[in-house]
């Protein structure tokens, strides 16, 4: 082995070791044990697709799967649209652009545990500003316990992430900055209105940013667990249950490890499927 080759191996080794321990071993573990009965008290034993069957007939899982899919769709559409509109508005360098961008980032910078706690208090029925503001503007007797009420919990949870699309806006802004100003100047000379420029020129050129942003937005819904733990904890009932929280509860409370890992496999597969579908929709990797 030449000296250079030895250094290449030495430089790569720690990274590969760490990655293998945390990712590779875990993935093998998740897939392998998802076909077993494995509880904290019992010896591990093979049971085929038994866990998957148990999952699909359980109400809790169906609700978690349904919610996760609804949240993926909402995030891929409404959330992305908010980010793109924000980027288009702030792309004209006005006095408020930098300020708005900085402020919009704030919820994305905080620990999601802190963000969840923040919203838990904002929606608090006793002292939270949401109820107080509604009471102030008319309905004096308005009193809703947002995260505990079956009709409002889903909405209140969704509001903790749906509007905060700063990362989508950053991606779009980077793409907008790369477009030559000549195109817009030409459009203005041809008499195009502001709306036409945004709709007909900027939006089509943003296709790749929108595609990447949609993938990020969709897959972020497969991670959300900390905000749920801090706010509704999946309830009331299973109203706001999602797959990550179901994995956590199945593993850490029920100690049903095989079942939790079967749920993990489904989570990974949904992630891969979402990425594949969104890639297809936006035909990414093709030039505009």
């Amino acid at each position, binding site marked *: 082995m030449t000296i250079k080759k030895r*250094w290449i191996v030495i430089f790569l080794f720690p990274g590969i070791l760490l990655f293998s321990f945390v*990712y590779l071993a875990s993935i093998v573990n998740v897939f392998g044990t998802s076909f077993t009965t494995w509880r904290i008290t019992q010896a591990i034993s093979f049971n085929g697709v038994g866990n998957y069957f148990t999952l699909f007939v359980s109400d809790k899982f169906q609700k978690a799967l349904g919610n996760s899919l609804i949240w993926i769709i909402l995030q891929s559409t409404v959330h992305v649209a908010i980010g793109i509109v924000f980027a288009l508005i702030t792309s004209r360098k006005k006095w408020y652009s930098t300020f708005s961008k900085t402020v919009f980032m*704030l919820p994305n910078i905080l*620990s*999601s545990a802190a963000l969840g706690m923040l919203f838990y208090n904002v929606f608090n029925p006793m002292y939270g500003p949401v109820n107080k503001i509604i009471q102030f503007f008319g309905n004096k007797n308005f009193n809703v316990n947002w995260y505990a009420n079956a009709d409002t919990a889903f909405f209140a949870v969704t509001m903790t992430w749906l509007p905060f699309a700063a990362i989508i806006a950053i991606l779009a802004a980077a793409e907008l900055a790369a477009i030559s100003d000549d195109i817009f100047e030409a459009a203005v000379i041809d008499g195009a209105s502001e709306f036409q420029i945004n709709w007909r020129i900027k939006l089509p050129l943003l296709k790749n940013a929108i595609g990447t942003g949609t993938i990020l937005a969709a897959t972020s819904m497969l991670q959300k667990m900390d905000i749920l*733990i801090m706010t509704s904890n999946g309830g009331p009932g299973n109203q706001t249950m999602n*797959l*990550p929280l179901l994995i956590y509860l199945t593993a850490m409370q029920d100690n049903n*490890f095989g079942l939790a890992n079967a749920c993990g496999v489904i989570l*990974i597969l949904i992630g891969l499927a979402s990425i594949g579908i969104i890639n297809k929709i936006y035909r990414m990797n093709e030039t505009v």
Partner: protein
Amino acid sequence: MKTKKSPASLLLIPAGIFLVLIILISIGPFLWVLLSSVKTNREILTFSFRFTNGVHWQNYVNAFKIAPIVRYFQNSVFITIMGVLLNLTVMSMAAYVLSRFSFRLRNFIRAFFAMGLLIPGAALLLPLYTSIKAVGLYNNVWGLIVVYTAFGIPVSVFIMSSYFLTIPKEMEESAYIDGAGFLKTFAIIILPLARPAFATAGIMQFLLCWNEFQFALTLTTGHDARTLPVALYYFKSAFASDYGAMFAAIVLVSLPSIIVYSLLQKQVVSGLAAGSVKG
């Protein structure tokens, strides 16, 4: 040339409303918490903007009394420093080799690291819990350090490789001609040049280590190795009646992230953009 003004102003009103709403919901909740963190319990419950009893710093003192925040703070600081240092060291080495030398497994190893972006963290929760327990790092700050260092790999390797590619190869060649070895060239020529990449990757890693909650909750128990975000969990469950102290705790957890972000905004933005575009 006369520009037509009317169609533009038609859009101005909805755009303005949109922007104001976004700003309000982005910063409003945090400002309210900040304000409430220096109010008494009674003031919080009446939702007034007046401070009848002056600024009530006592909440912060209480926050430290209710939960072992000092301990959590120390853990957070240690885990974050080690997580950032380890990740930058290990990944600058790997990224350098991956972006500079061609060898048989290069593309495979690149794809291997990028695979991390495809796996939702929650799916790793239980397997990491079992493997961290198996190697004796459960409830140990080093367990979290190892996990966070690895979680940052896909983003760090991408940010650093793309930066190394912009450094001209002539820099190293002249160093080799002058008789410097592989390690010396890397340490003396490349590392100082790559400072911007270290800043960007370092901040992304800082935010990851400082903010992470679910693994901090799962891989630890008791107080020995837990980090600040988990402290909030205590306030929510066990001590929910001292609202002022709870608000103070939220501020204490959030402030470091906000400070780092406002000081290094440019790096955060480019890091987020780079990290999300993937390899």
